[in-house]
């Protein structure tokens, strides 16, 4: 810095912030300077300290040392109330909305329009309508939150901050739940807000988004700031290196494959969800050995039910499921596993692991009653421990402590443990669901390489993911799923992201190509 530091130059100036948690130095002398009217990205892997930093700006945590200035004024934040009063608004990663209240009620909650003790709903609706029109954030004021789509829920969150007079908006990984189109809409909104003079802090670990919409970037790693960049003057490689601390492969390098025989064949499969409504409505597909088949789609379009039907966790009420030439429709999970199925479930906490079990039990779960782990109904702990140690070695699970409860592993290592267990059963067919949800770049890279290794070992791989980039870069063929049906079957190299987005929103491949052709 050439001039002397003057906090009045910045909308937000967090200077020398240090925050210690038991055992972790979450923020180590961090300085974040955000200029008025810019979109400023804060990037970093999980555990880099981004969220901790933002929670201190929003008054949810108090720094151990360091100063926070907002528009040049030093603040001593005791809670979110103080931050809100200082003009700061936060859109949390997990929406903070009350499901059974209406949009208008959610927006005014805590600062209600009122006549004495009575809640003035009419005025609330009016204020919200005005606000939403002036910023182009379209919402249905009278709809209940539980009935509106995720994109609109996010707009409600943004309106909540604007209603409270926010000049500085913090968005914590806002695109995690959005389709590509919704993401583009969000970026439009952010640009509009910037034009209106608002300052935006955008927390993310998706580098293409950083490049697309931000003006400046602050990179964090292990609690420290490792870079302050101007977006126009940098590139994803540089940001990734600053984030991870080493060179990272951003694109998986994939050799062309030569798929073998058909391993899995599904015909006209129908599956109901928990409310007994059809969630999967007659899908048909096949997966060959040595091939990765992706299923793309926005969450909640029947993927979960499809995966559960394929892995024996849910009954299909119509259709046929063939594995290695045998009819395995509605066999139990156990029978399917014995026939060569492996499953990496979308929720590793709920289905992948017994969190309170030590790692060595989780490492053999599902084969606990088989040789050599089990001999005449008794577990052989020596064998199990030795096996787990080897497994941890091979798959680089850290820390290498088999006795530790799996709950204490980081998310990335929990996932590695699940992957290690499933791969070591030598499957013929593996169903992989949301394999990198919540993982950081380093772990994602590892999981992606592993999935490609499975393909090279001639396993039939079905990859279900809401991360479009992931499906596009790993799959050899892709089925796009919308409301329980496939809207298209495509090869990733012949389709654009925009076309994928349209299919994920319900347009068929024929329609998409038709509109492209006539244009």
């Amino acid at each position, binding site marked *: 810095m050439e001039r002397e530091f003057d906090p009045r130059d910045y909308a937000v100036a967090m200077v020398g912030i240090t925050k210690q948690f038991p055992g972790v130095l979450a923020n180590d002398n961090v300085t974040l300077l955000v200029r008025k009217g810019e979109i400023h990205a804060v990037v970093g892997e999980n555990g880099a300290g981004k969220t901790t930093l933002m929670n201190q700006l929003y008054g*949810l945590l108090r720094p151990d040392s360091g100063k926070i200035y907002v528009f040049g004024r030093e603040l001593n934040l005791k*809670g*979110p*109330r103080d931050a*809100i009063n200082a003009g700061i608004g*936060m859109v*949390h990663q997990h*929406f*903070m*909305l*009350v*499901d*059974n*209240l209406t949009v208008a*009620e*959610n927006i005014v*909650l*805590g*600062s*209600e329009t*009122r006549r004495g*003790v*009575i*809640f003035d709903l009419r005025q609330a609706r009016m204020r919200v309508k005005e606000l939403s029109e002036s910023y182009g954030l379209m919402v249905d004021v009278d709809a209940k939150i539980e009935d509106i789509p995720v994109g609109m829920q996010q707009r409600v969150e943004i309106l*909540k901050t604007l209603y409270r007079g926010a000049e500085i908006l913090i968005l914590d990984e806002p695109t995690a739940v959005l389709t590509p189109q919704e993401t583009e809409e969000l970026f439009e909104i952010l640009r509009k807000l910037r034009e209106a003079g608002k300052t935006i802090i955008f927390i993310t670990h998706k580098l293409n988004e950083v490049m697309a919409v931000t003006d400046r970037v602050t990179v964090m790693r292990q609690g420290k700031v490792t870079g302050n960049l101007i977006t126009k003057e940098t590139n994803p490689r540089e940001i990734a290196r600053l984030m991870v601390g080493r060179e990272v492969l951003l694109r998986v390098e994939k050799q062309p494959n030569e798929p073998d025989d058909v391993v899995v064949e599904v015909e006209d499969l129908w599956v109901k969800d928990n409310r007994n409504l059809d969630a999967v409505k007659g899908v048909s597909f096949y997966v060959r050995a040595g091939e990765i088949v992706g299923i793309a789609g926005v969450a909640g379009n029947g993927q979960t039910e499809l995966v559960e039907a394929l892995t024996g966790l849910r009954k299909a009420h119509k259709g046929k499921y063939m594995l290695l030439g045998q009819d395995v429709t509605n066999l139990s999970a156990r029978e399917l596993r014995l026939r060569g199925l492996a499953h990496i479930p979308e929720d590793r906490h709920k289905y992948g692991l017994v969190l309170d079990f030590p790692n060595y039990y989780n490492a053999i779960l599902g084969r606990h009653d088989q040789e050599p782990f089990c001999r005449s109904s008794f577990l052989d702990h020596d064998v199990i421990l030795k096996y787990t140690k080897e497994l941890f070695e091979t798959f680089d699970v850290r820390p290498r402590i088999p006795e530790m409860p799996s709950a204490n592993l980081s998310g990335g290592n929990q996932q590695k443990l699940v992957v290690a267990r499933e791969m070591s059963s030598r499957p013929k067919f593996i169903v992989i669901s949301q394999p990198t949800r919540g993982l950081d770049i380093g772990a994602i890279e590892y999981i992606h390489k592993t999935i490609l290794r499975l393909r090279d070992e001639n396993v039939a791989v079905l990859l279900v993911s809401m991360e479009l980039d992931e499906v596009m870069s790993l799959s050899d063929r892709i089925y796009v799923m919308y409301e329980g049906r496939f809207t298209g079957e495509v090869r990733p190299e012949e389709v654009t992201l925009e076309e994928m987005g349209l299919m994920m929103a319900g347009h068929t491949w024929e329609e998409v190509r038709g509109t492209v052709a006539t244009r």
Partner: protein
Amino acid sequence: MRWIQAIFDILTNPQFYKITLTASTPFIFASLGGVFSEITGVVNIALEGIMLMGAFTSIVFTFYFGSPWLGVLMAIIVGLGMAWLHAWASIKWYGNQIVTGTALILLAQGVTGFLMEPIFGRPGQTDLIGKIEEIRVPGISEIPFIGKVIGELNPLVYIAFGAVVFSWFLIYKTVLGLRMRSVGENPEAADTLGVNVYGIRYFGVLMSGVLASLGGAFLSVGELGQFKELMTGGRGFIALAAMILGNWNPVGAMLASLLFGAAEAMNNQLQSSPILHVSASTKPLFNMLPFIVTLVVVSGFIGRTRPPAADGIPYIKE
């Protein structure tokens, strides 16, 4: 045929409807209490215990000071104290709400049973000590049939229905009500908007104490004028069923309470029906009627009602 005749006689007699209102009153009070507590996210199964304490306290103060209304007032204060214990354990200390609630029920049963002897000189039940008399509403009481049903009732019955309107208005039309509903559904969201989650939960639980002890007081100084050990007889739990059946809405809880009250009234009238001659040995079977109705209705409706999402989950600030 005698059965159909008997039931027909009962249904055409205004007395049945009046008894329904009276029998519903404790359910209405207690289920409104449940609504207040659970809508802010705290399960309060202690309603049964709070009712029992309310019934006992009001008789004790009527016994010493001769005023049933003073008894009702003191019942409210004791109810607040019981509810405060529940709130303190489950909100401040994140206690398991079922365990705390059960403890309070046992506490109430123990305390009331133990104090019978020192205060009234004998266990089991007290003498007739005094009750709040029915009041006649001029005008309405002269209307044929309807006047016989709603024209002359215990003031606490009118208060119960007033409390329904009051609760509905408070929960759905005021700022406080909006905040209560938000706290029971997503306390974290409410907290980030500056809503005082703990304060509102305390309010909800304390209101449930006031209402449940009113329900209990009605049983003793309202209906009977005496106290009997364990006289609530599971009404606190039926009130919880009414709350669930009413979908955590005051008006719904009132309708469900009326249904359970009607079952009790029907039981009562069938047993005293001159046509049927119910023998002493079959009376226990009849006494099951309200519980059977509860069981059937609640099991039929389960899954169709939706509890507040954060009901029963302590809110722990990070």
